């Protein structure tokens, strides 16, 4: 479509630019705040919107901990990043493998109660962690998994959404492909590994992005579940830094932590985006 309406183009751009500014301003404030010292932030109200010179010191304090000017302790963020990263990875990969396998069973095998099982999985969509948190806690605590990685991740791994997505994808794979591989002598597992897995690359990439962020942003479950500081994920860490009133907080460190917490998911999105666009172009059924 050829359109030559300069005024409309201008208006459209203004609206879009306004939207971008609106969304990115808080991010900018966070970034700027993390480059100043806590005194600079608190003493000048409103705070300066120009970057300060304290960037390296702030991030060092945030990552590895240290003492504030007033003498209170800053707990290091690096271990929290590690916990968050491990949890997000385990949750994303676990969700993908479990739901791929269960979708494989639902689509390619005929077993008694198949429809019933599928609907039971589907119904769990109505029961997210927040709803079943009490009972899940009891079960996991009963298994002695408090303050462990297993306890942080396993209850979050089962995923009806991902199962459903993979099921829908497998249904679009032509039956002839299955039959051709049967004639070629591939058993179910070989077919899964050699044919379905490579064909699903795009869906896997997309789901990985979504589930990694889901895992990274978990707050309520770790909050209830972990009492050991070594197992705190970073999202909880930010919350714990906010103590009493304005003056009591090391705002620059809090902001630096927030930036650090945002980076890995942003990186995952950026890196995987490239990857799954490539997958979209190449994949042909």
């Amino acid at each position, binding site marked *: 479509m050829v359109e030559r309406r300069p005024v409309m183009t201008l208006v459209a751009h203004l609206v879009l630019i306004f939207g971008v500014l609106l969304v990115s301003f808080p991010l900018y404030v966070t970034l700027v705040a993390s480059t100043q010292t806590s005194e600079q932030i608190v003493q000048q109200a409103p705070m300066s919107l120009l970057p300060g010179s304290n960037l390296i010191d702030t991030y060092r304090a945030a990552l590895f901990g240290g003492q504030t000017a007033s003498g209170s302790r800053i707990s290091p963020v690096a271990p929290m990043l590690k916990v968050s990263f491990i949890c997000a990875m385990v949750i994303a990969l676990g969700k993908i493998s479990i739901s791929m396998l269960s979708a494989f069973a639902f689509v390619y095998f005929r077993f008694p109660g198949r429809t019933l099982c599928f609907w039971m999985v589907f119904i769990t969509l109505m029961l997210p962690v927040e709803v079943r948190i009490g009972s899940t806690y009891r079960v996991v605590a009963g298994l002695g998994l408090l303050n462990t990685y297993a306890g942080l991740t396993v209850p979050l791994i089962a995923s009806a959404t991902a199962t459903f997505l993979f099921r829908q994808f497998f249904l679009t794979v032509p039956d002839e492909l299955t*039959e*051709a591989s*049967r*004639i*070629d*002598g591939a058993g179910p597992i070989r077919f899964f590994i050699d044919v379905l897995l490579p064909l699903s690359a795009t869906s896997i990439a997309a789901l990985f992005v979504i589930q990694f962020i889901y895992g990274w942003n978990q707050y309520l479950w770790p909050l209830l579940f972990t009492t050991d500081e070594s197992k705190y994920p970073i999202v909880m860490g930010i919350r714990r830094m906010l103590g009493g009133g304005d003056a009591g907080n090391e705002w620059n460190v809090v902001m630096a932590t927030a930036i650090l917490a945002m980076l890995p998911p942003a990186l995952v999105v950026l890196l995987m985006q490239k990857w799954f666009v490539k997958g979209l172009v190449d994949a042909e059924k």
Partner: protein
Amino acid sequence: MASLSIRDVVKDYRAGLRVNRVIHGVSAEVADGEFIVIVGPSGCGKSTLLRMVAGLEEITGGQIAIGQRVVNDIEPAERDIAMVFQNYALYPHMSVFDNMAYGLKIARVPRDEIAVRVRRAASILEIEAFLDRKPGQLSGGQRQRVAMGRAIVREPQVFLFDEPLSNLDARLRAQTRIEIRKLHAELGVTSLFVTHDQVEAMTLAQRVIVMNAGLIEQIGTPEEIYRAPESTFVAGFIGAPPMNLMTVRGDGSSLSRAGCEWSLSGSVPRAGDLIMGVRPEHARLDDRGWPMQVELVELLGAERLIHGRLADAPFIVRTDARLAAPSAGQIVGLDIAPESLHWFDPTSQKRIPA
């Protein structure tokens, strides 16, 4: 290579408590190295039969044997067959080489031998230049060759083709048809080829199996099937345009229908109701013959099809395009040689032998 025998094969599909029988006891013997085409309208059970030979569908009743081995309960991979699918079913993420090699890899054929076999098949099919490409980068005709290549490298006892030419355009189809024939002459592998296209059936087959509604109507060479169709179904299915069929009342040496009466120099096989069949090319325009009302004339280049009504029954005549064309509405006479008539029983629909 091996013979293939299909004995009283039955196929039922279950939908809840209802049993739907799609193949009602079919038997056929295919000799070693023979090229057999199964032809029939859609839904006649021809693909199901092929898939039962392949092992993709369970056999409800009867037996299928490849060589001397009954294969009813044997997995497809162990039946020593190879199949070419209508949509080719190539693995989209594998290169052409890997597509062809996949079955051999699973069968744990040594690497060097796989390479030799794939290259040999590729050179037969002239696809050596594409071995590194993905199926998505190939044209329909090239994909079709890769699908055939995948079948050839397996060096099977029996080739199964499930309408492999349907997705090609008309020119490519004619060309591929010839190549399949050459390939069969070269490799001599027993082949079963399913199609709904009677031209493919006539040109490819050493023998044709005509199927209808889950039953075999006739098995014979293309010539036999054309010259002496066993039933009205075969008569109407084979030939383009098909044989003209009409119910007539016979009496000694004359025929009557819808108030018209014709005398016949030969004899009518029996008195009473009969179905008379005439191939469109066996009727000649002749003013002294049976009168036909012309409705439509089609020019096909070398020949002309004249659609009309003979004693109120639709009738098609094929004539040489160089002869003068009648116009619509005109009445023309038809001269039909009595020995070219086919006779069928109206109740059983079977051929009445002359």
